[in-house]
């Protein structure tokens, strides 16, 4: 029996790696630190760009299906509430130490640890953490989810009243040299458009304004999602928001320049959602040390070769899948997972030859 591949992270990318490895006849152990599989996807109220991609009404329906398939796959083992505490050996003979005091003799390792959304509390000009009606995109998403705290209704956190006016601020924590994050987080424009479109679909009288610098709805089906959002009445104002301030009644005053009209703009909203960009997973540095791999200047794990080996980490036998190399849409995490599974299988075969 071949040594299993140790997959660190049980999000959609990690699950996909395990599923495809299983179909290729390679065993795997999925090590997930939280109590559930699926990563950040189960809380999504909708997926994009089609909102009902593959017939799944929300993120959890999709991850439930993946999990069902994974549990049915005989060659994949899942360990929840477990983290990697150490690693010894080299490719193709690693020994992975786990927090449940066991160890796994693994032929290869796949890092599928995902990302962390940027915490906007440090961008004090937006008032997150100080003003109740300033929330993050993650919080907005959960609020829009019928499974969530308000049954899917948009409400002001200050007083529980219905929120009619929503501002969505793009590029929070991204494209900002000043805070050491010059990169673009790539999918925020798209997920924000999805959220805005959802709100308008449910309440045609709502006022939803997206404050953008660019609209990077770049992938297949995304631009069409953007047009649909506009047709539904979402307003797009080109200008980076410079500050949010709370008014006496708890509403938030948002300031930006409308750069297409060359005029400063100030508007009042019930809720302001900060579309936060990405940061690496919380334990990225520790994991990099444990595994002996490098990270790039943006903090995410670095691949060995940009074009030919985009899934190889900087050490033999260790591979990278999903948002561990930067935020990407679910579909690309799935594509990554499949590609990595193929790459791992081929590498193991070569090593054992």
């Amino acid at each position, binding site marked *: 029996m071949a040594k299993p591949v140790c997959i660190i992270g049980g999000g959609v990318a990690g699950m996909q790696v395990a599923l495809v490895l299983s179909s290729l006849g390679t065993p795997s152990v999925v090590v997930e630190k939280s109590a559930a599989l699926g990563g950040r996807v189960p809380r999504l109220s909708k997926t994009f760009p089609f909102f009902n991609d593959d017939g799944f009404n929300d993120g959890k329906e999709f991850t439930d299906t993946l999990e069902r398939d994974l549990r049915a796959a005989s060659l994949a083992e899942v360990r929840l509430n477990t983290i990697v505490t150490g690693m010894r050996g080299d490719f193709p003979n690693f020994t992975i130490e786990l927090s449940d005091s066991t160890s796994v003799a693994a032929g290869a390792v796949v890092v599928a640890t995902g990302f962390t959304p940027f915490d906007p509390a*440090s961008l*004090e*000009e937006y*008032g997150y*953490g*100080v*003003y109740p009606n300033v929330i993050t995109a993650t919080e907005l998403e959960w609020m829009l989810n019928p499974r969530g705290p308000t049954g899917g209704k948009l409400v002001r956190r200050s007083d529980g009243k219905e929120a009619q006016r929503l501002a969505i601020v793009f590029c929070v924590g991204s494209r900002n040299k000043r805070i050491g994050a010059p990169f673009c987080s790539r999918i925020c424009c798209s997920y924000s458009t999805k959220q805005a479109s959802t709100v308008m679909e449910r309440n045609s009288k709502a006022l939803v304004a997206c404050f953008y610098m660019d609209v990077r709805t770049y992938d297949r089906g995304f631009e069409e999602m953007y047009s649909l959002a506009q047709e539904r009445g979402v307003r797009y104002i080109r200008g980076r928001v410079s*500050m949010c*301030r*709370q*008014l*006496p009644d708890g509403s938030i*005053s948002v300031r930006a320049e409308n750069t297409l009209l060359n005029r400063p703009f100030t508007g009042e909203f019930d809720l302001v959602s900060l579309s936060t960009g990405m940061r690496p997973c919380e334990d990225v540095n520790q994991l990099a040390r444990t595994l002996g791999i490098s990270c790039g200047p943006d903090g995410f794990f670095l691949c060995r070769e940009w074009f030919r080996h985009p899934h190889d980490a900087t050490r033999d036998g260790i591979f990278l899948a999903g948002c561990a190399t930067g935020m990407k849409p679910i579909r690309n995490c799935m594509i990554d997972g499949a590609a990595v599974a193929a790459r791992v299988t081929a590498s193991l075969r070569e090593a054992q030859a």
Partner: protein
Amino acid sequence: MPTATIPSETIKEIPKNDFFLTPSCILGAVNPGTEVLISRIYDLLGLRWKTAGDRAESKCTCCTGFSSHGDLITIESTLLVAARLWSIAAEMGLENITTACVTSFAIHTECLEMYKHEPGLDERVDRWLQQACGRRLQFPKHVVHASDIVYDNRDALAQKLRYRLVDHRTGRPLRIVDHVGCHYAKVFPEKAIGGAESCDVLAGLVRAWGGETVDYPERRHCCGMGFRQCAIRPNRGYTMACVLKKLESMAPWKPDAILTNCPGCNLFLDKEQWAILQMTGTEYNIPTLSYSELTGLLMGWDPYAVVGIQAHTVPVEPLLDKLGIPYDKSKEWLTKEPVEVM
């Protein structure tokens, strides 16, 4: 009212003693008490400080900040004037500059920063300084604003204050708007306590001394002094509009006072309230004090002879009534009286 917490990255290093105090051009002019009070506070705290000379022979010139932002002086001239002041400080064995004015703070900081970005600048300025006045370029160790020192010592001062920022009749903490000078917090945010957005240099004093800060939409809006905008009369509408904007924004919270750390802000937020009353009919009547004036009042120092509240356009007496500080209105315009400071 919510007050943001200070991210640890923007806590700055504040020197503890041995200060070279650079006086301001405008502060000493329009609110003279404010500036002299800084020296009194330093003395109260037992700090060692000098201003480049005793009564007979002051070598301290202005930093040229106002002229620089008024576009009348070259950056190189400003660098030389600053270098001269640093050389005087060095002569006296002082490596910590504390400025009375926030524009000076930004100017000195800008000069220091410039040497980091421009290779060879230090040699050129050193050469010119020698040619101009026989002095050498010597960098100070710290450049801070005098309000940084008061902030750093706010708890020690809290022990000494005779009065607290509460309405002594009801026990209600007074609501104080903190208006931080733009050149303190915005030009080099990493050199401001709390950074540009949640600047704590004045809010910290309010909290430590029993008051409550006010968070209102235009909290970080400039007072509008604007250098050439306030200096030339036809431009002054801009200044007035900025002051009005702030007053309108803070009014719903009914603040008891505005606290400042900049000479320009102290001047315009106070004095334009009269013009605004004439033009809009609204009497905001919010007393505006600098941190040094507030310290002096809470210490129980004479409001007229030492703090100089008579220089203010919006009467400060109603605030004194709230604080429970006694005053003799007949002494407002007296001169040549002996002064008991402490």
